[in-house]
């Protein structure tokens, strides 16, 4: 049975009717947040990662009801007032090939850089990205870019 929903996404409200267990991912994409990507639907690849109250979360297995009342930030919202340092560093390092995994990696890495700043270590980056799959093999560049973004923080 569909019920009304109302979600705070990237500083505005999206609303409509949906089954309460509809995955957040599909509501985001329905409302123009196509930067958040479907990869597996089971929280196993990281491509759909967004922030809920600043915490990286898989939107593909987060039911809409549990996102109600939370502040959701997507990759598009992150870049709204100019690219995040992680995004700038990924471009600097040309850290990607097909780029499909990047939205999720950006969200995970941005949270990491925001939290640890210049104290961030390579092992932390590798561990934090453990749940993010990249098939093209651009991992070393991404790690280097994230560490560079971190080193430029206070």
């Amino acid at each position, binding site marked *: 049975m569909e019920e009304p929903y109302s979600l705070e996404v990237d500083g505005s409200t999206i609303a409509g009717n949906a089954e309460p267990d509809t995955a957040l991912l599909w509501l985001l994409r329905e409302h123009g947040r196509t930067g958040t990507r479907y990869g597996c639907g089971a929280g196993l690849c990281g491509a759909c990662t967004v922030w809920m109250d600043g915490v990286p979360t898989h939107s593909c297995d987060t039911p809409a009801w549990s996102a109600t009342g939370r502040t959701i930030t997507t990759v598009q919202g992150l870049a709204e007032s100019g690219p995040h340092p992680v995004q700038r560093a990924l471009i600097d390092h040309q850290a990607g090939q097909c780029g499909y995994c*990047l939205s999720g990696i950006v969200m995970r890495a941005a949270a990491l850089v925001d939290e640890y700043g210049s104290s961030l270590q390579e092992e932390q980056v590798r561990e934090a990205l453990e749940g993010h799959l990249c098939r093209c093999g651009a991992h070393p560049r991404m790690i280097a870019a994230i560490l560079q973004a971190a080193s430029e923080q206070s």
Partner: protein
Amino acid sequence: MTPSLQDNPLLSQWLEFHTDGTVTALTGKSELGQGVATALAQIVADELGIPLDRVRMQAPSTDRSPNEGFTAGSLSIQHSGTALQSAARAARHLLEEAARGRGVDPLETIGEVNLDVPVASVTVAADTTLPSRDIGRSVPRRDLDAKVLGEPAFIHDMRLPGMKFCRVIRPPYRGAHLVEVPDATGLPGDSTVIRDGSFLAVVASLERHAIAAHAMLVERCRWEGEAPELEDAHLTAFLLSAPTEDTVLVESEILEAPGSADALTFSAQYSRPFVAHASIGTACAIAQWTTDRLDVWSHTQGVYPLRKDIARALGVDIERVHVQHVEGSGCYGHNPADDVAYDAALVARHLPDVPIQVTWSREDELGWSPFGPAMCVTISATTDSAGTITSWRWDGYGNGHSSRPSTLPTPSLLAYASQADGQPIPPSQDPPLAAGQGTGRNALPAYDIPHVHAVAHRLTTMPMRASAMRSLGAYTNVFAIESHMDDMAHAHGIDPIDYRLRHLTDPRARRVIESVAELADWGVAVGDNSGRGIGFARYKNSGAWCAVIADIEAIDHIVVKHLWIAVDCGRVVNPDGVINQIEGGAIQAASWTLMEQVRFADGVVTSSDWETYPILRFPDVPPVATTIVSADDEPWLGSGEASSGPTAAALGNAVRAALGVRVRDLPLTAERIVVAMAE
């Protein structure tokens, strides 16, 4: 002349000049995340002598682009790059001729110049080449910023007015046909069920409704039929016993081992399982039927071959079918891009005027895609008492490496095998030797060996659908050849690098091996349970030279500590692009080699999620150091597939160095290593 120019001779098929001073370069090669659109733009800008930002790249489309077949075989720069180079050079000549003596910018004469002339008919003096400004420079990729910023970048993000979303309900096992039309009552939203024979799909205005309806319909369908008996556990026996069509690639009188007591014969068998493309995004396409035309948007590797198979499968005039390339997730060969395009076309036929976007599920992506073929290789080689190789025999067994659209007697699109008037997909083929072969790709060692005999045994039955995946047979063949080389070096007490160099007169081959040895400081001591190995090949025996050294540590599984790579791909258009391709190819090959195998039984692929089909993750990805061996005066060669085979070989040889055990059946899992130790 490049085949691209033979097939598309006119200058106007390659370049369009605009009054604002910009130029559109046309290509039949798809941007797959490999950066080809950027590299081709660099070539055009250089040859025209105009700033790079004035060159626009047109994505391939059957309405406008030159027909260059597939974006495959590491040939995009060789074929499309060379064609665009010639076209741009010819255009510059014609424009300069028109402007001569008039004191105007040659580009301003564009309205006066007829570009509907064969490129080959324009004679350009050899000494008029401009100095390179963009070729050889690491220009940033044109497509990457949007992907980092989460802007619409992929076909999945495309939204056409009135577009509906679709999911396809695949059979529960291979060989099943639909016997009961499911009850469509109670499906969410405006879900509509489309059936054509055993092809079943659901369409809805909202994507989440199509997904929910798909889940409900899966429960309601009834299927019957015979599943193929093959299972992954019995793969090698199957490969060696199934009916084949044999092709002798090279024939030689095979020498018996010389009579002296210390001469040796080395015989061994190698294998790899089926391997999945496993892109992070799933296949997606959009199709729309209007009164007189079918439009298809697709992340295909070949818009023209896809168009041909769609027209064949639907039984419509090919001129009515229009295919436009739009980027998708990573593409490493014949993945389901073409299949999903046909899914969309088939569904759209039932719903005139409505654009239909079909996206595959993760389970179908890992379960129903064509796989990189399983292979079994036997090698028997002889050496004289000094270790010099005197003869070499190779036999390769497996399905052909291409069932790409338009290459088989009947359409090779997945849904065509399910639709009411469809036919099963025929067994895959191998390209001819001149085009690089498939099973036999890199079957012939690059080493100087007086007697080589090689026979490809292509299976004429195909219980699991197989097709092209990055480097085709070269991956397994280079793994086998280089494992064999190491074992022979070891038996003769010769350093593996010295042993290779003794059998190589090709200076460019020697140079990449010497370069990587220097880069990695070959000979340095490694720790306990650790080992170092080398792998080398010249891709397709006609492409780039590449050598890889790997350091591994054997804990409870094999951990790659470091990869060093040297590559010679001739003149380099974009050095950073080459390094990205070489490193990416190596990391992907490390993943295949260490952990990947498609699991299946009774017609069902059971490795259909990321837990059952694991790939290499961030904590296990090694640092990679790559050096480009400079060869700027030589023709350019592709780099996308050069590192795959050498990486596999370096890892296998490093495992042997660490543990003293030769593992010949991939992947190099703890389980396989234990089996090899027991033998």
